[in-house]
C-alpha cells in the first residue's frame, strides 16, 4: 500500500507535515488531568464514575487505559472531548480547558480531537466518501478541498475502491477504517479510541491496531485508547493506566507495568496475556512428577527475552534445566515472556543459578520447591 503520497501533495497537507514534525518533539504534555472527578446523580443516590484521577499524556504517545466494564474508562475518555463535563478537577487537552469551554469554542476544540467508536457510529445514509466528508462539512471546508482531502484519507486507511459503498455493504474492519479516516479528516492533535477493536475479530483487530500505530508514527498523533483487552495494550501502547472503580490504580510504561504489576487487578490483566488459564493447572499437575529440585517462573522483559539464557545457565552451573511451558509476546516496546522451568541439582548450585538468572534482568519466582 502506498500511504505516503499525501504527505507531499500541496494545500492542506501542510498540516500533516506540521503535525508530523510536532510529533517528534516527544515529551511535551498534550493532555493533563488534575484531580478529575465525575459524579452522576442517579435516582438512588450518586455514582462516582471517575474518582480523583490525575494523568499526564505526552504528545505523540499511545496511551492505553485498561479496565473492566464499569470501571469508568468510558466516562474518562468522554471527559477529554467535553462530551462529559467534570464534576471537579481540570481537564486540559492541547492547552484548552475542556471542562470550561462552551459553544463555538468547544466545537472548535472538538474538531482537533478525533474519536473512533466500538460500534463505528457511521451515518448509514451516507457513502464512505460522504461519511469521511462529514467532519469537513462541519468545519466549513470548501467542497473542492473536501473532495481532495477525502481522497487522501481513503488512500491512507486503505479503502480505495470502496468510496461509493454504503456502511451496510462494508465489513466491520472496513467500517472502522472509515471511522478512522473520518476522525483524522480535520488533522486532529489527539485521537480518542473508545473500545475501537472490541467488536472486531482477532485478525481484523490486529490490522486496525497496525493502522493506528502507522498513523501515530506518520502523523505524530497522540492516541488515547480505552480497552478491556490486554492484547491491545501489549500490541500498541507506550504507556498504560489501569482503572478500577473510577480510580487509576496503576500507571507507567507498558513493559514496566508488565514486569512489576503491583495491584491485584493489574496482575490479573498481565496474567491474562502471558498465561492462559490452564497454565497454572498444568504446572501444578507437574509438581508430583518432579520430586526434587524446584519449579520457577522466569519473566523476561525487553532485551532479556532475546538472550540464550537457558543454555548459559546450564553451561555455567551444575544444574539440569527443563522447560515446562513458555510464551513470549511482542509489545510495542519490546518482547515480554514467561517461562516455567524445572531446575534440579545441588542446593548451592541451584541458588547460584537463580542469582545468575536474576542478574540478567530476568525476574524469578519460585512457585514450587521440592527440596
Amino acid at each position, binding site marked *: 500500500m502506498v500511504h505516503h503520497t499525501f504527505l507531499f501533495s500541496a494545500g492542506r497537507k501542510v498540516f500533516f507535515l506540521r503535525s508530523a514534525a510536532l510529533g517528534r518533539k516527544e515529551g511535551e504534555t498534550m493532555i493533563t488531568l488534575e484531580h478529575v472527578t465525575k459524579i452522576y446523580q442517579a435516582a438512588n443516590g450518586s455514582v462516582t464514575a471517575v474518582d480523583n484521577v490525575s494523568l499526564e499524556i505526552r504528545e505523540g504517545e499511545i496511551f492505553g487505559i485498561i479496565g473492566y466494564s464499569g470501571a469508568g474508562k468510558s466516562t474518562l475518555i468522554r471527559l477529554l*472531548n467535553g*462530551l462529559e463535563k467534570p464534576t471537579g478537577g481540570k481537564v486540559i487537552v492541547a492547552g484548552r480547558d475542556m471542562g470550561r469551554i462552551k459553544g463555538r469554542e*468547544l*466545537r*472548535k*476544540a*472538538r*474538531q482537533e*480531537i478525533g*474519536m473512533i*467508536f466500538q*460500534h463505528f*457510529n*457511521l*451515518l*448509514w*445514509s*451516507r457513502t464512505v466518501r460522504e461519511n469521511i466528508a*462529514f*467532519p469537513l*462539512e*462541519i*468545519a466549513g471546508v470548501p467542497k473542492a478541498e473536501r473532495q481532495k482531502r477525502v481522497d487522501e484519507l481513503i488512500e491512507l486507511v486503505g479503502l480505495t475502491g470502496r468510496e461509493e459503498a*454504503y*456502511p*451496510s455493504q462494508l465489513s466491520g474492519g472496513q467500517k472502522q477504517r472509515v471511522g478512522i479516516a*473520518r476522525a483524522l479528516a*480535520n488533522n486532529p492533535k489527539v485521537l*480518542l479510541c473508545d473500545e475501537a477493536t472490541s467488536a472486531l475479530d482477532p485478525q481484523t483487530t490486529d490490522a486496525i491496531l497496525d493502522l493506528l500505530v502507522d498513523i501515530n508514527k506518520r502523523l505524530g498523533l497522540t492516541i488515547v485508547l480505552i480497552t478491556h483487552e490486554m492484547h491491545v495494550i501489549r500490541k500498541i501502547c507506550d504507556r498504560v493506566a489501569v482503572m478500577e472503580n473510577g480510580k487509576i490504580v496503576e500507571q507507567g510504561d507498558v513493559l514496566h507495568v508488565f514486569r512489576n504489576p503491583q495491584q491485584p487487578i493489574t496482575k490479573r490483566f498481565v496474567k491474562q496475556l502471558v498465561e492462559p488459564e490452564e497454565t497454572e493447572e498444568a504446572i501444578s499437575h507437574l509438581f508430583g512428577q518432579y520430586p526434587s529440585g524446584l519449579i520457577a517462573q522466569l519473566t523476561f522483559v525487553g532485551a532479556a527475552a532475546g538472550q540464550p539464557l537457558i543454555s548459559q545457565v546450564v553451561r555455567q552451573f551444575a544444574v539440569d534445566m527443563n522447560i515446562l511451558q513458555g510464551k513470549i509476546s511482542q509489545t510495542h516496546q519490546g518482547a515480554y515472556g514467561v517461562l516455567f522451568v524445572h531446575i534440579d541439582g545441588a542446593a548451592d548450585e541451584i541458588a547460584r543459578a537463580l542469582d545468575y538468572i536474576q542478574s540478567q534482568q530476568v525476574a524469578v519466582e519460585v512457585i514450587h520447591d521440592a527440596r
Partner: protein
Amino acid sequence: MLANLLPNVQWETMWAATVETLYMTGVAVAATFVLGIVLGLLLFLTAKGNLWENRFVNTVIAAFVNIFRSIPFIILIILLIPFTTWLVGTMLGANAALPALVIGAAPFYARMVEIALREIDKGVIEAAQAMGASTWTIIWKVLLPESLPALVSGITVTAVSLVSYTAMAGAIGAGGLGNLAYLEGFQRSHNDVTFVATVLVLVIVFVIQLIGDVVTSKIDKR
C-alpha cells in the same frame, strides 16, 4: 355502455371532485409534513437525555399532541369552526377543510416522527457531537437524513388517513369526492355515484401507497 351502467355519474363533476380531493390532500400532506417534523423534533429533542432536554416544553407539546390526536376528526372539524372562519373567512369549500386536516393529522405524524428519531443510534449523534457539530447541523445532517425512510413511510400512512379525512370533511361541506358521494350518492340514492367516488378514492390511496413504498425503498441504505 358506461353511461348505461352508471346513469347518474356526471364525469365532469366527478373529475372536479377528484381534483378537489387531491388538492386538499396535497396541501394538507405538505403542511402536515412540515408541522409534524417540527413537533416531532421538539418532542424528541426536549425528551430526557437529549440535546434540548426540557421537561416543561416536552410536557406541553406532548399534551397538545395527545389531545389533538385523540379528538375524533368529525368532532375536531366542528370544534375548529370558529378558528377556521377566522383564518379562512368561510367554513365551506376545500380551503376551509385545510386547518382541520392539518391540525388533525400533524400530531399523529409528530408521534411517528418522534419514534423515527428515537430509532437513530445514540452513538451516531454522539459521534457528530464529538466532531464539533452544532445542534442545527445535527438536526439537518444527522437526525433528518438518518430517519428519512421512516419519515417517508410515516407520511405515506398519514397521507392515506388524510384522504379519508378529506372525505369526512367533504360530508360537512368541504367539497371533494366525499362531499359528492354523500350529497349526490347517499342523499339522492344514486349508488353508482357512491361507487365511482369510492373507486376513485381507492385509486388515490393505492397511488399514494405505491409512491411511498418506492421512495422509501430507494432511500433506505441500511
